[in-house]
C-alpha cells in the first residue's frame, strides 16, 4: 500500500514539475493557463489519491473517515479546477487578450 502511495505521489509531483516548466516557458496567457490547468486537475488528483492510500494503510474506522474526507476533496477539486480554468480563459477572452502567433515575441 505504501509503495502504491509513493508511486501515485511521485507521478503527481512529475506532473506538477511539467506544469511549472510550462508556466515558466510558454509564450502567452492561454498557453500558460493550459499548463497550469494540468497542475490543478491531474497532478493534484494524483497526489490526493496517494495521500488517501497512505492514510488507509492501517485500516480502522478513524482512518477510513479521514480517507473518505480526502477522497471527497479529490471529487471537489475535480469539479472546481477545470471550471476555474474555463472561467479564467473566458474572462481573458472577454477582456481582449490576443492569442500568441508564431514568430511573435513572448509577452
Amino acid at each position, binding site marked *: 500500500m505504501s509503495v502504491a502511495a509513493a508511486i501515485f505521489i511521485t507521478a503527481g509531483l512529475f506532473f506538477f514539475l511539467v506544469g511549472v516548466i510550462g508556466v515558466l516557458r510558454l509564450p502567452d496567457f492561454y498557453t500558460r493557463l493550459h499548463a497550469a490547468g494540468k497542475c490543478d486537475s491531474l497532478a493534484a488528483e494524483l497526489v490526493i489519491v496517494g495521500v488517501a492510500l497512505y492514510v488507509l494503510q492501517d485500516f480502522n474506522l478513524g482512518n477510513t473517515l479521514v480517507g473518505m474526507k480526502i477522497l471527497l476533496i479529490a471529487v*471537489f477539486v475535480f*469539479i*472546481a479546477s477545470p*471550471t476555474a480554468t*474555463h*472561467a479564467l480563459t*473566458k474572462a481573458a*477572452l*472577454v477582456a*481582449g487578450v*490576443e*492569442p500568441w502567433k508564431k514568430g511573435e515575441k513572448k509577452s
Partner: protein
Amino acid sequence: MKLLQERTAKLKLGESLIIQTAVRIMVPFIQLFGLYVIVHGHYSPGGGFQGGVILGASFVALALAFDQKFSMQLMSERVNGVLGNLGALIFVGTAVLCALFGGLFLDYSALDKLIPLGPIGWRSFGIFIIEVGVGLAVMSIMVSLFWDIGSNGEMDEGL
C-alpha cells in the same frame, strides 16, 4: 475571436453554462461543509468565523455565476438582516446570561444553574452556542457586503 466576444456580451444572465452548472453542483456541498466547520469548531480546525465565511462564499458564488437578483431570490435581504442580528443576539445573549447567573461575562459554567449539565459539559456546549451565533452573523455580513459593494449600493443588477 470577435464573434466569441460578441456572443459573450449578448448573454444575459451571468456566466457561461459550464460555470453555472458547476456552481449549481457545488453550492449545496459548500453549504454543508460550512455547517460542518461551524459545528466541529471546538474539536478541529475551524469555528464560527471560518464556517460563516464559507457559508457566505456559497451565496457570493451564486451571485457571481448567475445574477445578483437570483441570489437575492434565494435569500432575501430581510432574511439576511434578521439572521445577522440573530447571530449577534445569540452571542451577546449567551454572554449576558452567564453574567446574570452569577459567573463572569462569557463564563459558561455559570449556566449550570439553568440546565444542569455539569460545569465541564457547559464549557463544551457553551462554546458551541457561541460558534453558531458567530457563524450566522459572519455569513450575513459577508453576503450583505458583497451585495452592497457589487451593485454600487443599488441592490439591483450586480457585477
